[in-house]
């Protein structure tokens, strides 16, 4: 019987904080006035996320494994845990105003957000396949519901439905893969699976199914079909959270499973070619499809598919624990989660009651009406394009160099070409904002949404900091990968 002592509880703290927050939100909501903005819920949510942040910082250090090996608090999980908690916090800040505009200012909204965060943190820290599955499901179910929360908009319902159906299908693959791996080894703990020879058909088949399941969750081509519709239909704040948090948590678990359970050379030789294909396809399909979009959210969805490809380049060129590739992925996903969240925060800010601000053409002349929003959006887009001195540049540089260093030249070249093409569609909105006359009316008369502005400011500042002074974050990412054992 495991001793449920301090180690067990300590490891659980980052998850407990948002979980208790979610319960507190649910219990507070009925006592609030119906018509008025539900600020107490925002405070509770923010408080619990800050507590999660503090817990993550408190645990930062050597690897602690608890709960019979189910959960591991190590730098690897905590690193992306910070990204997840930050993304959730910024989403809450922007939701304070946005949820009211969309008519979903309710307890369920915030509690689902916090429950999804708890699931993501569990996923990032999961050390056995059962916890991976439970983390993914807790996160996904909450996010499916969030995607459909604006029930009056048919597109939102469509997004939730498509995301849910395809997600459930992918979960089937994941679960079947886990079952096969368990059948082959009798183990669910990642480091114990690593002890088994990798060239066994059952184990390899299980790995294959896992790749499909994870491929779906991180949105890699050809498992990306849900992404455009889900991103476009879901309310903007949720989409941002989805793009940042789900991807960060998914990559954390994906990378951990690959490095820990299938980190041996024989196993790596099996998954590397498959991931090579996924990475190349994601970059090419994502970039080319994004070119043709007229809807900003849809364009960002395809861009997130392409970015999954870039991150996968690092996974393929990981070079194991000793190489820089895995650390590059961690850093890349960290920067990506901030820079993809940013544009959605701006969209949420610009949206009017019940109406999303999502057409690229509507951006025309934005710089004159809303200079701050336009500047921030430009910064985020430049970073997504990978233009220095933003974080996006550092992330791409780190990933591509790691891949080329470990001999994956072809993948590096595809990545660089895709980046060059992508500059076109990232720059187009900027050109529109700054060089065109305004066409649509902007809601300049509304009171300024300070919380939203603050969130956007934090994201922009983080991107600049990570771009100009990346050394600390990169050093931490290297340390994180080294500390996996």
């Amino acid at each position, binding site marked *: 019987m495991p001793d449920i002592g301090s180690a067990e509880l300590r490891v659980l703290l980052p998850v407990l904080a948002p979980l208790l927050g979610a319960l507190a939100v649910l219990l507070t909501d009925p006592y609030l006035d119906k018509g008025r903005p539900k600020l107490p819920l925002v405070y509770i949510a923010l408080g619990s996320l800050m507590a999660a942040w503090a817990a993550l910082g408190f645990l930062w250090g050597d690897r602690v494994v608890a709960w019979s090996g189910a959960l591991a608090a190590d730098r690897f999980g905590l690193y992306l845990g910070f990204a997840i908690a930050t993304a959730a916090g910024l989403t809450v800040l922007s939701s304070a105003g946005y949820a009211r505009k969309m008519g*979903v200012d309710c307890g369920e909204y915030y509690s689902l957000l916090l429950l999804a965060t708890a699931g993501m943190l569990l996923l990032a820290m999961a050390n056995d396949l059962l916890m991976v599955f439970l983390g993914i499901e807790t996160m996904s179910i909450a996010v499916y519901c969030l995607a459909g*929360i604006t029930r009056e908009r048919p597109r939102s319902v469509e997004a939730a439905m498509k995301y849910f159906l395809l997600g459930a299908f992918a979960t089937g693959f994941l679960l079947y893969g886990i079952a096969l791996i368990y059948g082959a080894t009798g183990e669910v703990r990642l480091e114990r699976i690593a002890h088994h020879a990798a060239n066994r058909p059952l184990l390899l088949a299980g790995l294959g199914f896992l790749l499909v399941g994870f491929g779906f969750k991180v949105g890699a081509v050809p498992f990306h079909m849900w992404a455009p519709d889900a991103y476009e239909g879901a309310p903007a704040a949720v989409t941002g959270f989805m793009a940042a948090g789900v991807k960060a948590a998914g990559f954390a678990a994906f990378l951990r499973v690959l490095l820990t359970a299938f980190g041996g050379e024989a196993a790596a030789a099996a998954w590397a070619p498959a991931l090579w294909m996924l990475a190349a396809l994601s970059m090419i399909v994502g970039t080319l499809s994004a070119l043709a979009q007229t809807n900003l959210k849809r364009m960002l969805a395809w861009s997130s598919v392409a970015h999954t490809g870039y991150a996968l380049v690092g996974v393929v060129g990981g070079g194991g624990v000793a190489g820089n590739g895995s650390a590059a992925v961690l850093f890349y996903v960290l920067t990506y989660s901030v820079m993809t969240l940013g544009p959605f925060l701006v969209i949420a800010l610009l949206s009017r009651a019940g109406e999303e601000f999502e057409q690229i053409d509507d951006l025309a002349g934005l710089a004159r009406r809303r200079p701050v929003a336009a500047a921030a959006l430009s910064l985020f887009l430049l970073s997504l394009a990978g233009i220095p001195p933003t974080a996006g540049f550092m992330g791409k540089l780190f990933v591509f160099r790691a891949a080329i260093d470990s001999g994956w030249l072809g993948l590096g070249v595809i990545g660089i070409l895709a980046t060059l093409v992508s500059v076109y569609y990232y720059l187009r909105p900027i050109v529109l904002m700054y060089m065109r006359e305004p066409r649509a009316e902007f809601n300049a008369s509304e009171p300024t949404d300070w919380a939203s502005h603050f969130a956007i400011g934090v994201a922009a500042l983080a991107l600049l900091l990570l771009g100009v002074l990346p050394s600390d974050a990169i050093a931490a990412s290297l340390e994180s990968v080294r500390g996996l054992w």
Partner: protein
Amino acid sequence: MDDLIFTAASIVCFLSALAVVTRKNPIYSAVSLILFFGGLAVIFLLLRAPFVAGMQLIVYGGAILVLFLFVIMLLNLREEELGKEKGGRFKAFAAVAAGALALLVIVPVMAAETARDGFGPLASLPDGFGSVDHLGLALFTQFALPFEVTSVLLLAAIVGSVMLSKKHV
């Protein structure tokens, strides 16, 4: 004897699973699904997992399927509302997809079987395997955290479904 029961149960499972997707009337699909769960429960029994077999019947056969039936009955679609059968091309595609999935499932297991790769025969199972005591002990010691996290998962599902279905936000 075990082989005989297994064969019978798998045939029931296979035919009823087939009926689930081929019946046009959703009520019959649901009825076939109940039958399928019954067959599955028998297979679980043969695998020395009586608790799982019982849960299969209680939770899936007894509770979830009744809710399915509930919805189907409330909608109570008539023949003309069910719409025309999907065309042959759709069916062909579905058959190919199902076949491919079946291959994906069967091939690794067969390969494992020929390579003598896997978990080992049932005889090597520990004493009391599949019993309620054993299961309870495992759930509350080694797998305590996954067990508890499941409740978080269910909470998320409950909050989400209540939110999506209630009249006023």
